[in-house]
């Protein structure tokens, strides 16, 4: 699963800490999701997308391979 979190975060001038506070998870979780090491649950993916005011499909792109 690829994602656009880093680009969207930078476009919105948001730090990893800001995003983590907004969705209620640790900064470590944002680092792991952003780098593709961890695929979030549907609920967390929805909350992250909502923080960017986007749909899940716009933030997360399905890619064969799964977690790193």
């Amino acid at each position, binding site marked *: 699963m690829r994602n656009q979190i880093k680009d969207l975060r930078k476009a919105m001038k948001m730090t990893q800490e800001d995003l983590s506070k907004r969705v209620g998870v640790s900064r470590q979780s944002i680092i792991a999701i952003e780098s593709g090491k*961890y695929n979030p649950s549907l609920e967390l993916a929805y909350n992250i997308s909502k923080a960017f005011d986007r749909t899940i499909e716009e933030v997360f792109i399905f890619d064969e391979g799964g977690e790193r």
Partner: protein
Amino acid sequence: MGLQIGGLIGLYGGATFGILGWWLGRRMAKKNRGLDELHDHIWQKARSISWYFTLAAIYILFSLVAFGIELSVAMVLGIMLLVHMSSWGITGMILSINMNRTEPLKPSKVKFGVAVMVLSLIFFAVLSIVTGNWWFLLVGIPPSVLGLISALSPEGTVEGKV
């Protein structure tokens, strides 16, 4: 068999301090929103992996009995507890560090480091059982630490996926 005061203190004292440390750790993690789904994922995975190490320890201990070595209940339970708890903790730590880094750990280095740790632990545990000298377990600590350092040491530059 008489009452073993030292054993009881070690058993219940260790459990008390362990639970206290676990509770304090969770309290600190909660402040940084650390008790999230990634935390659950890491520690569930670590617990699952630690059962493989415990299974290996059970097979090795059974093999020793089959070879005619006499093992006491306390010795067997002590080794199983040590293998299970240490592999749970170390695996969780490796997974946590890996998730926290921008560059992933190199899987071959992690496998090598963990193999060195496990093999040295098993080798020195067996040596201490066979010789009846528990000091051999202490000799197993330096290679285990080296294995851990090797597993966690960063590789060169790795291109990020995103």
